[in-house]
């Protein structure tokens, strides 16, 4: 009796609670879908990031932001926002409290629609002062130090339109500058303001249709055609080892690149990989990456303007998570323009359309995947295995986990099990590698049986089969003869 009463009470309580908190339940559901890509399809997944809060400047001494373009989070957690509509840079501390602004005082340091910035470890602020066509340097306290106007070089030419939008400094204090509309690569400028060359330019690939047009078109027609230019860079980030991560717009594949110090793409080495969502409708819906941020562990987070989604990849370029989208709810964006992440792994996405910065935190699932993926990328498969098993317990659709566990098993020389995992992930190449080892093992263990079997098979084919055929033929002949005799007998 008491037991039954208890359960009834529990059910009623649950019902009442669920009635009381519909808004709470609503808020916890996400405005975007979470998914993974398998070899050939999209499957549901668990969200890696959820919306936490926003900063819009309202209530801060700085006042509301206006068309913020970019964000930079320094190592100490200070947040710098390029508030382009207000022609200034706003600095907040790690707790989102106002610290100071840069470049809104009249004088040589007056900014005009700055679209990007970089902060050195000592706190010196480098701003891409886009409308003024220069790079401006401020001290940590906000005092103007100097500016770098358009660099002069025969390589650049007089018709070059210089509008620096994003920049980064390497360890030598060389500036790498993205200039809007420039297809020759990143501009390298040394600390004296001298132009040091273009870096890591994109290339125009070979195309059959272009070759055909070239062969058919007349001189006059060719002149009227638009020149084919390599795609332009839209954003950049740099990791501790000095590798440059870039985003490219106007390309269908390899939009994310990791450039080595000599400008070679090491992320998509020898492969064509499509980042972002897989569209098949054509160039109108091609992913258009405009922001990139790389974590200390090499996890790459990139922002796609086309879908307003954020995509995250591991160091090898394997897809991990996506979130965001177009919309009005918290967690979706109007017109996102850039992103960065802090030490805790929170991702800050600048929403230019809604004049605010949205902050996303990781879910426990994402933390697990990140931890496992970092070990995996380092080649520490055995250590990663337990974590990946945990990932699979939470989300059996996570295909990467099967590959990772397969590799761990392979390393532990448990080839048959490794094959099973690779098969689940449909990783044909890895499967084949494990299979080869497995085959070796089987042959070694059953050598006598296999050798004897082969000898027996040879004997059978060499002597047995011809003999069998001869006997069958003789029988058939005899049968035909006796059949004839029988028929003869019948007629008689």
């Amino acid at each position, binding site marked *: 009796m008491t037991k039954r009463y208890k359960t009834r009470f529990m059910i009623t309580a649950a019902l009442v609670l669920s009635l009381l908190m519909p808004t709470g339940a609503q808020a916890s559901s996400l405005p975007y879908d979470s998914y993974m890509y398998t070899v050939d399809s999209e499957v549901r997944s668990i969200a890696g990031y959820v919306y936490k809060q926003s900063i819009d400047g309202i209530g801060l001494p700085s006042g509301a932001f206006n068309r913020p373009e970019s964000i930079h989070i320094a190592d100490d957690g200070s947040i710098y926002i390029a508030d382009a509509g207000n022609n200034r840079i706003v600095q907040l501390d790690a707790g989102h409290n106002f610290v100071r602004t840069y470049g809104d005082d009249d004088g040589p340091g007056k900014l005009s629609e700055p679209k990007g910035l970089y902060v050195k470890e000592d706190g010196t602020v480098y701003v891409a002062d886009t409308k003024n066509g220069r790079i401006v340097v401020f001290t940590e306290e906000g005092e103007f130090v100097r500016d770098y106007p358009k660099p002069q070089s025969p390589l650049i030419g007089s018709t070059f339109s210089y509008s620096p939008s994003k920049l980064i400094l390497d360890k030598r204090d060389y500036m790498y500058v993205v200039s809007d509309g420039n297809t020759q690569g990143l501009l390298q400028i040394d600390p004296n303001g001298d132009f040091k060359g273009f870096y890591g330019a994109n290339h125009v690939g070979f195309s059959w249709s272009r070759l055909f047009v070239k062969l058919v078109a007349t001189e006059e027609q060719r002149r009227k055609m638009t020149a084919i230019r390599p795609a332009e860079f839209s954003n950049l980030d740099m990791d501790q080892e000095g590798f440059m991560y870039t985003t490219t717009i106007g390309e269908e594949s390899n939009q994310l690149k990791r450039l080595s110090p000599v400008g070679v793409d090491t992320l998509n080495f020898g492969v064509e990989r499509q980042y972002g969502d897989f569209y098949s409708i054509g160039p109108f819906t091609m992913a258009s990456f405009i922001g990139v941020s790389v974590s200390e562990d090499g996890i790459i987070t990139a922002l796609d303007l086309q879908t307003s989604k954020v995509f995250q990849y591991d160091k090898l370029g394997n897809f991990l998570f996506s979130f965001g989208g177009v919309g009005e709810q918290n967690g979706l964006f109007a017109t996102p323009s850039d992103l960065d992440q802090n030490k805790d792994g929170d991702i800050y996405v600048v929403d230019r359309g809604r004049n605010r910065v949205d902050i996303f935190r990781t879910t426990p699932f994402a933390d697990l995947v990140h931890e496992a993926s970092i070990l995996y990328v380092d080649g520490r498969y055995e250590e990663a295995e337990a974590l990946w098993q945990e990932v699979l317990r939470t989300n059996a659709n996570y295909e990467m986990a099967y590959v990772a566990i397969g590799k761990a098993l392979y390393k532990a020389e448990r080839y048959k099990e490794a094959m099973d995992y690779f098969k689940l992930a449909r990783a044909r*190449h890895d499967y084949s590698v494990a299979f080869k080892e497995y*085959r070796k093992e089987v042959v070694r263990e059953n050598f006598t049986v296999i050798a004897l079997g082969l000898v027996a098979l040879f004997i059978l084919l060499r002597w047995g089969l011809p003999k069998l055929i001869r006997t069958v033929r003789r029988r058939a002949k005899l049968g035909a003869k006796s059949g004839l005799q029988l028929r003869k007998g019948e007629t008689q």
Partner: protein
Amino acid sequence: MNTLVMMRKVMARPFDFYEDIQMPGAIRWSHPLLIVALAYVVRMVVLYASGFAFQTREPYEISALQEFIWLVVPFATWCVAHWAVSAILDGEGKFKEIVYGSAFALVPYTVFMIPVTLLTQLIALDEAGTVTALTYAIYAWVGWLLLLKVQILHNFNLAKTLFIVALSVIGMLIIWFVGVLLYGLANQFINFFLDIVKELRMRA
């Protein structure tokens, strides 16, 4: 003569085979049908039984009906187009000889493709060269038998054989085009009448 004997003959002595089938009364209609059915079965076995690393399609992507259409329709249109083209251009072959000869050109595929498929169960991807070479060899054999068939049945020289084959392929494409066109027109035609019926019912 049963089918097995003929299959052996087309592989062992193809010249004699194509001479012999021109003898009166040498052709049974059941033989080519059996060979095409066998080729279909072999095709399905190849798709399902190849080693995991060698599968180019997931099992759910394989459609038995589609595979059947992709084998029977090209074969049938080849026979018709080739017969039409060769009949116009002084070929000596009869339609039934063409069907018979074309079907038997598939024999190497039906016989050797299954061992090659079983081989893929035993080898790794970096040894795939063997399988690829064997597969190409089988296809080349089939192609060579087809050419031989054209040459011997119609008593052509090599240049004319190649010319007729090219024309036959164009003929196949034309047949397909007309087929698709007729399908579209018939569809519109039927829809037109259905719409009239609908309209009449609405007004009545």
